[in-house]
């Protein structure tokens, strides 16, 4: 039974039972998403897609090639056995705002749990890759509970080896699968983008969830602030009122650069702000995926 209004992030963050929180989020999604939005390579034809190097040649539509001289690959709606691996950024930078209950990390955990719930409910396989956790994609109710327990036990802190984690997740995913990365993507841009592109070349469908807070985007402080880097501890004295415009320009440029590159390379990119209800963020993501 879908709920009438989305559950606020702070309420969701306060729910200790992650499965319950995930179910609330999923039940809050609007109806119309009965069919899987995750496209696999199984029986039911879904759509054509331009051929990309690495695609299985057996799915190339030769008749269409003969008629149009263009190489298209047939996509099928996967009803079973979609393998999805969820990667969660556990760096200290995700533990922001420190005084708030809805940190970026908590928000990421809820989104990850909801995605796992959706995938598992459709009979697909979901796994988890974090700093010290590696849970291969499997389906089934029991695995979902183990998966949610693993997601719930994650703790953020320190530096996150994002590139290595993504590589490990892509390698362990085996066959073509769905790779979901939930992060603020503050890591080194170029190595991360290269790693994501490599995963794509391996045939994985890569989805980026970039989680940020509103304060990171707008820098609402007015006085002199000594900003302390959550990961390195380095301090930087700044007059926020004076620095705001440059900061906003810089982060807007960063966000646009990340989004543009993801789209150019065929990755789905979704920017979610933690003051948005997770249902809304997931709904827009799933609707965009169905389109």
């Amino acid at each position, binding site marked *: 039974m879908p709920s009438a209004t989305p559950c606020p992030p702070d309420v969701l963050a306060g729910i200790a039972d992650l499965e319950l929180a995930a179910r609330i989020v999923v039940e809050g999604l609007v109806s119309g998403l009965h069919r899987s939005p995750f496209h696999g390579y199984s029986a039911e034809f879904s759509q054509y897609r331009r051929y990309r190097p690495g695609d299985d040649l057996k799915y190339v539509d030769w008749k269409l090639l003969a008629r149009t001289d263009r190489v298209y690959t047939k996509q099928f709606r996967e009803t079973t056995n979609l393998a999805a691996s969820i990667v969660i950024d556990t760096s200290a930078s995700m533990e922001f705002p420190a005084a708030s209950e809805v940190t970026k990390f908590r928000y990421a955990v809820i989104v990850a749990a909801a995605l796992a719930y959706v995938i598992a409910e459709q009979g697909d396989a979901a796994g988890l890759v974090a700093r010290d956790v590696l849970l291969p994609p499997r389906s089934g109710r029991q695995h979902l509970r183990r998966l949610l327990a693993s997601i719930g036990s994650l703790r953020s802190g320190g530096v996150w080896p994002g590139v290595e984690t993504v590589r490990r997740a892509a390698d362990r995913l085996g066959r073509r699968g769905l790779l979901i990365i939930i992060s603020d993507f503050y890591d080194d841009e170029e190595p991360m983008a290269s790693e994501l592109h490599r995963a794509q070349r391996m045939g994985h469908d890569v989805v980026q969830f970039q989680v940020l807070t509103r304060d990171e985007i*707008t820098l609402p402080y007015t006085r*002199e602030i000594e*900003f302390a*880097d959550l990961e390195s501890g380095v301090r930087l004295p700044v007059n926020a009122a004076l*620095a705001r415009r440059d*900061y*906003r320009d810089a*982060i807007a440029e960063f966000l646009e650069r990340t989004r543009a590159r993801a789209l150019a390379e065929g990755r789905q990119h979704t920017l979610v702000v933690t003051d948005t209800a997770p249902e809304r963020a997931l709904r827009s993501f799933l609707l965009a995926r169905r389109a």
Partner: protein
Amino acid sequence: MVWLHPVALLALVAVAAPILIHILAQRRAEVVPFPTLRFLRPMALVSLRRHLLEDPLLLAVRIAIVVAAVAAMAGPLIVTRARREAWNRRIVRATVTMAAPGVSRAGSRDRDSAFQAREFRGASLADGIRRAVEWLDMAPPAQRELVIAAPLTIGSLSAADIAEVPRDVGVRFERVGALAGERSVAYGSVRAADGIVDREVTIAGARTLVRDRPATAPATAADPALPIEVVATPSARPLVDAAISAVLRERVWAPPRAHGAELVLLSTDYAPPRVTAPAARLEPWMADAIARLTRDNALNQASAQASSGVDVSRFSQPPWFTVARSRDNRVLVAAAASGDRLVVVTGAPPSDVVLPILVRGIVNAIAVVPDIVPLEIVPIPGAQLTAWSRPAIPPEQPRADSVESDDRRWLWIAAIALLVAESWLRRSRRRDASAAHAEEAARVA
């Protein structure tokens, strides 16, 4: 400009509050954990703290609010020429009258023309003047005038009373009411054969009536017939008693209990020992009594006709005072102090008429006789009143607590207007900030 409450200006130190708050708020930079510093550029905050005022206009308005409020509390008074002329035009008048039927409406005709007027009525003009001066001292800025409306008889007013009036207060006299037809006053006590009686004197024009009434406190058995101890030989005692009896029949002033005297009648075979040790220190009342005895005409005339009697020449040296001399110019009566009493010695024979006259003179001399001159009903001369009169002087500097209105209302209005301006500035700043924030958020989105 005059500050009516200048102590309030000390509150100007409050002006430093918004500045200090601003500086202190800038001095301590808040530490905020932040996900990444890659989009921030370092700044030299020290120089910023020193030179940067985030909103100098708002700070100036807030300081102006504090200054205006403090200045208003200090009670500013701008003494303009027009205001001073207005003060000089008005008169504050205090009228002093006496509680007598003939002067009940005195000064009322001046009340309408005065800015403020008040009448002070009392038993004496001196008391009325004192109260009037206190009231004038608290009066608002104006020409101050004291009107003394009374019959103005001698004794009702003195130069000392006028000296109590401040120099800038004008003094004017109005002789109102008729002089009293007669005046009856208590006039001491008299000792008679049957005790002490109170004497009352009625002055009616040129006539003076003396009336004796039974004493309010009759003499007791402990009271001696006369406060004089007479020392004499037993043979002279009957003559002494006869003399005292004659004096009491004639009535004499009743001396106070503290004034005592000793009369020693010297004889050739009798020399009382106490006379030989007179005190060197003379009390004022004793000196007064010796002087009165010396001026007693009856005693002097009787002594001048008496024979010398016993030689008392040894009492002619200090501390003895010669009071009267005999026909042959020898000392007949001498007086001196002996402890707390006056000692009078005489060599006159007890049978001489000098004895009763001396007894009467001693009693009257040690008594306190009231002065009847101030009781006479005589008006103060017009020349004296003119000399005491003077015009009011315009006030130079108003007293802080007597000004009825000042200019603080303008400063309060200014403070309120500044508060409104400050509120408007704050809201406009907030509006600008929210608009910029929304614009930035939209741009970022």
